[in-house]
């Protein structure tokens, strides 16, 4: 992966954009020639750059781009020379700037704008340099100027040129100019370090705006334009900016245009301002004239002072008044005296000033000061609205999002409570602006109408759904019958509910419930408490802890807790991918043997009444996503206490039949478990939250418009914060790196991952076992040993993947339980921005896996094995450890990669197939778990259920002695077993096969 950079080059008459890219690994050799700029060793050549740009911006036309070489000043150290941009932070040596030659592409202003529009504004895409991101933000400003029509056509005479010129006269653009100039990253100045940031910025704005206006309209038909010099000028504003004629009329035209523009040339250190002053009680409003400092808008000079000072101020003041009177005619009325200071306005005029003139004046560079209560006309706090106060509410799991809670209400305006009489009096005066207490506020006719209706139809209480209440208290504006809710007070249990929802730390942790076989870590106790709390209020919960933090255990403890409190009066349906059904069953049996569990799958699963009866006898029914759809009729007949979705990202597509079938099932509580950072995947977030708490985030297209587009497309921080506020109560996500969690975790955790065989694997497995046992019986001695060992290899291959065994070159997806689980887990690793090693003892499987994963995950995957050359090995290890954008998944053969290497950047280790030798496996694990490792390490050992893998795994874990024997003898001990013993070890337990058809 490469990082793209861009420099706006301002070296008149040359102006354009230099696009270049660097990669983590030096491309060119460093030449040490003092005095002379050396080639920047990390820069991509133009030939390598083009495909990178094309890949990043597929719709950008690249054909006409020229290549170019520029000299850039870049950070360097004395000893190492110029450094890779992403590696700077860890350097100890002082940095200096060094001139380096960089190859790249040259873009004109129009091409630059096309490019910058395609650069994502937000997000953490590390392949976009901050310099390029900065210019894309500037391009956004240009778009804003175009939308607001803040530009003018201009004409220069030497040489005759027609250009569109940005108008930065308003206060907002002046402030923006300052802000953007201050934020300009040093990297943006690397080509022209002597140009001041603000000049660089202006040059970009001017060129980009001019280019964009030209490309943003149809070229006019010359016949429709006035004749003569004007036509030449107008055509040059649409096409070639250089006027070819030496028309003697150009000079008078330029002069006329400058006269025309002159009202806008009023740009000095201060600007004329207006302060709207409301009357004491009623009567006339006053618009005071004053001067405001452009530098510091807080610095004001009133008219009295202006008339006592010197002429410059007076003339700025007068000129401003003259111009402003064009925009807002009532100002003229105040100019009929010798030394004007204000004009008066009636209420209607004051209202019109607020509604229309304020914006226009500000946009034209004037200052406008308004009373605080009127300065944000639309803001809720100043509107006529409702004040609500909660009555008593008790937690109740039958409550749910849509239950109505009762509130006492009061009408309020600008923070003041209004009695009905007060309101009638205000409503009777037809004034759009009214005084309440000490403040003047706008009284909207539609609010008045809504309030009248409200008085007519309501008693002193109003019902509000819990959903309403939650959204209200999490900052989402709400109205009741058209009236905004301006104030909201809660007390008692509701207050506690809101507090607990906003701050998870205030929850009461729940200790291991009676009958729980294990211990809960402190953060897990809190997780159980959280699930319990939401369940009591009938709210759906999404437990999204990092992979490996024990969501399974938390859920099991929660269900057991419900049981111990006699609150579990029905079965809970747990839906998960087929690949983890076995794992769930094992974990429930291990941690909570009291809970009756039934795995609902396979062709012999109970149906109809049978199923209902089975379900009613158990506490947990485990089934798969695929079956929910197929068995939805049966599933609907059961009255479910709860419903749990494991790997809830499976319902990310709301249109999928599977998702719809799941949403149709009803249960008294709903829980979703997921290890992916659900908050960052908005489609998934909506789908999961809408399943848990239907309607809470609004309809899908509303959600798209309100949140997904602004956040994903434009990186809008305020929309993101608003969304976070809304969803945060229902999502509990702890990371391994959280300080409270990390202290609870051991540095290395090992766990078995039980995976089912697919029917194809099972059929192959059984065939090989039958054939082999027959042949083993027939043979003796060394031949028998050979057959046994060959059988073991074959069965391991089948457990890995049918294709691995058959060598058929067939497709990989959906044919292996292990591979499925691996994909699911890797997705979480990548989503957490972490790295993983995968060990296998089979080089041929490593190759298959590498090809498959890199395609599946759309990313480079390394594979190191006996056939890798020394150089290749070093390069792979080097990139894995050092390249910030290097591959994050590394497959190694156990033999070639199990020793010697240092791969501490990974913190997940997968043993895909097993050597049955803990020492060998530990040694491999130690590639990661060693000095230099800064994170907690997780080790996953894959085991196929019902196969020899599970049986040997059980043996090793249960019988220490045998385990030692295993360790000392490798796999040879197997060949010493009797045929009967072997049969017991090898024969497949059919009940563990999962029918994955259609899953």
């Amino acid at each position, binding site marked *: 992966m490469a990082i793209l950079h861009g420099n706006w080059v301002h070296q008149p008459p040359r102006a354009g954009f230099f696009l270049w890219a660097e990669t983590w690994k030096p491309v060119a050799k460093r030449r040490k020639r003092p005095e002379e700029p050396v080639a920047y060793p990390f820069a991509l050549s133009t030939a390598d750059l083009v495909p990178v740009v094309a890949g990043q911006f597929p719709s950008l036309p690249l054909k006409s781009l020229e290549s170019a070489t520029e000299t850039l000043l870049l950070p360097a150290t004395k000893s190492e020379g110029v450094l890779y941009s992403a590696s700077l932070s860890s350097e100890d040596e002082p940095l200096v700037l060094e001139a380096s030659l960089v190859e790249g592409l040259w873009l004109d202003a129009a091409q630059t704008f096309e490019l910058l529009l395609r650069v994502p504004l937000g997000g953490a895409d590390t392949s976009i340099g901050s310099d390029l*991101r900065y210019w894309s933000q500037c391009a956004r400003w240009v778009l804003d100027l175009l939308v607001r029509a803040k530009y003018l*056509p201009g004409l220069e005479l030497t040489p005759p040129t027609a250009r569109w010129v940005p108008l930065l006269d308003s206060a907002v653009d002046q402030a923006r100019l300052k802000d953007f100039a201050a934020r300009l990253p040093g990297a943006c100045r690397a080509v022209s370090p002597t140009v001041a940031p603000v000049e660089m910025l202006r040059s970009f704005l001017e060129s980009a705006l001019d280019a964009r206006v030209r490309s943003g309209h149809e070229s006019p038909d010359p016949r429709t334009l006035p004749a003569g010099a004007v036509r030449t000028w107008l055509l040059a504003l649409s096409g070639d900016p250089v006027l070819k004629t030496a028309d003697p009329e150009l000079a008078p035209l330029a002069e006329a245009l400058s006269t025309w523009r002159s009202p806008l040339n009023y740009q000095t250190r201060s600007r004329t301002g207006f302060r709207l002053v409301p009357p004491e009680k009623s009567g006339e409003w006053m618009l005071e004239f004053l001067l405001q400092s452009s530098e510091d808008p807080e610095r004001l000079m009133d008219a009295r002072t202006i008339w006592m000072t010197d002429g410059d101020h007076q003339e700025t003041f007068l000129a401003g008044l003259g111009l402003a009177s064009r925009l807002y005619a009532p100002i003229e009325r105040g100019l009929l005296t010798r030394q004007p200071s204000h004009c008066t306005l009636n209420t209607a005029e004051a209202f019109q000033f607020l509604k229309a003139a304020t914006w226009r004046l500000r946009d034209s560079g004037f200052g406008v000061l308004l009373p605080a209560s009127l300065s944000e006309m639309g803001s809720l706090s100043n509107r006529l609205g409702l004040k609500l106060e909660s009555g008593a509410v008790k937690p109740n799991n039958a409550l749910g999002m849509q239950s109505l809670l009762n509130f006492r209400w009061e009408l309020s305006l600008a923070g003041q409570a209004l009695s009905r009489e007060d309101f009638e009096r205000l409503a009777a005066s037809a004034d759009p602006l009214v005084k309440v207490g000490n403040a003047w506020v706008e009284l909207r006719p539609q609010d008045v109408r809504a309030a009248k209706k409200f008085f007519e139809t309501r008693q002193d209480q109003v019902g509000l759904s819990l959903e309403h209440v939650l959204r209200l208290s999490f900052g989402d504006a709400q109205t009741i019958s058209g009236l905004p809710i301006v104030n909201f007070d809660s007390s008692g249990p509701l207050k506690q509910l809101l507090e607990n929802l906003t701050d998870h730390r205030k929850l009461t942790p729940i200790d291991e419930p009676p009958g729980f076989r294990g211990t809960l870590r402190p953060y897990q106790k809190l997780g159980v408490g959280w699930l319990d709390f939401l369940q009591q209020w009938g709210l759906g919960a999404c437990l999204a802890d990092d992979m490996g933090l024990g969501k399974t255990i938390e859920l099991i403890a929660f269900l057991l807790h419900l049981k111990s409190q006699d609150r579990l009066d029905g079965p809970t349906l747990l839906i998960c991918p087929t690949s983890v059904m076995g794992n769930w069953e094992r974990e429930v049996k291990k941690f909570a043997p009291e809970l009756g569990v039934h795995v609902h799958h396979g062709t012999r699963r109970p149906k109809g009444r049978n199923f209902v009866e089975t379900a009613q006898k158990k506490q947990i029914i485990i089934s798969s996503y695929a079956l929910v759809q197929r068995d939805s009729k049966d599933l609907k007949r059961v009255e479910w206490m709860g419903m749990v979705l494991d790997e809830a990202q499976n319902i990310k597509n709301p249109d999928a039949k599977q998702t719809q079938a799941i949403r149709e099932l009803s249960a008294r509580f709903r829980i979703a478990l997921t290890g992916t950072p659900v908050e960052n995947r908005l489609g998934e977030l909506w789908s999961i939250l809408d399943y848990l708490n239907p309607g809470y985030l609004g309809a899908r297209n509303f959600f798209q418009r309100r949140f997904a587009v602004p956040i994903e497309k434009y990186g809008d921080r305020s929309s993101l914060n608003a969304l976070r506020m809304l969803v945060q109560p229902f999502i509990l996500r702890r990371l391994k790196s959280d300080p409270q969690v990390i202290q609870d975790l051991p540095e290395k955790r090992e766990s078995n991952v039980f995976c089912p065989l697919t029917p194809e694997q099972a059929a192959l497995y059984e065939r090989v076992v039958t054939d082999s046992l027959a042949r083993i019986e027939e043979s003796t001695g060394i031949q028998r040993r050979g057959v046994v060992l060959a059988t073991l290899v074959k069965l391991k291959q089948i457990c890995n993947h049918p294709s691995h065994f058959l060598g058929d070159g067939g497709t990989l997806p959906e044919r292996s339980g292990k591979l499925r689980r691996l994909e699911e887990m890797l997705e979480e690793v990548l989503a957490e921005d972490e790295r993983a090693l995968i060990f296998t003892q089979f080089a041929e499987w490593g190759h298959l896996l590498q090809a498959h994963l890199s395609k599946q995950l759309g990313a480079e995957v390394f594979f190191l094995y006996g056939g890798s050359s020394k150089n290749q090995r070093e390069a792979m290890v080097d990139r894995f450890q050092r390249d910030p954008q290097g591959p994050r998944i590394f497959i190694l053969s156990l033999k070639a990669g199990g020793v010697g290497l240092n791969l501490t950047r990974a913190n997940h280790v997968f043993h895909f197939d097993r050597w049955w030798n803990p020492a060998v496996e530990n040694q491999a694990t130690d590639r990661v778990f060693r000095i230099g490792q800064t994170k907690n390490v997780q080790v996953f050992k894959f085991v196929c259920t019902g196969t020899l893998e599970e049986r040997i795994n059980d043996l090793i874990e249960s019988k220490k002695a045998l385990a030692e024997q295993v360790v000392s003898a490798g796999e040879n001990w197997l060949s010493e077993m009797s045929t009967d013993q072997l049969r017991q070890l090898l024969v497949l337990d059919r009940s563990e096969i999962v029918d994955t058809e259609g899953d």
Partner: protein
Amino acid sequence: MSDLVKTGTDTPKVFASQWWAQRWIDVLESFGWTQRLARGRNYARNGNVLLMDFQGSQVIARVQGTAPQPYDVSLGLDRFGDEQWEEVIETLADRAIFAAKLLAGEMPQNIEEAFTASGLSLFPFTKWDIHSQCSCPDSANPCKHIAAVYYLMGERFDQDPFVLFALRGRTRAEIIQRLRELRGNARTAVDTEAPVKTVPVPPLTVEHFWELDGDLDPSLVVIAPPPSQETVIDFLGAPPIETAEPTVNHLKSVYSQVRDRAIAASLGGE
């Protein structure tokens, strides 16, 4: 012939887009001689006026007639005396609106009131107020050559309304300076441009070299169209050129196309 007359009445504003220039043309046209004026207007439009020079309160021009040699035209108004001007400017000083509008580059609507108060008229009132001469053999005044110059002067007033003051004997600067003195500020006007401070270019350093601080302003994330469709073109009004109307129409069409496309682009719908 009837064609020309028709053109004349249909496009009365050709030489004047601002009220004060229109007012100037109105005075001329109030005198009658429709046909002669129409011919003069054609002269003006076809570039027969070869030269036009403002020399104090006089306009000197050369107009190409039917003869090979161009005719010399001079045109002037009565200059006001210093005392008359003093009286006018004192009246102007009584109302800040005059100074404000003049400083904003605009001729105040009711400027004439300030002159009438002193028994004067800024604009010519009768044809006797305009002193014109032409070297052509036509004895009528105004002849078509004088009329051509008169029309072009209207265009010139459009660009610079203060030429009218000059014809009466005072420049804009002189008036503004006197107004300033009357406000009690004797100091002569200084260049309104603030002295250019040379801010040294900040040196490029390695600090935060690759870092972009701060978020994009939320109002640039969601770019909202302004509450009004009016643009700076509406604010400035028609440019002081002969073909103001079609020019403004064309510019407005450009602005609206550019605006619509920019909104589309800001929503990602390139």
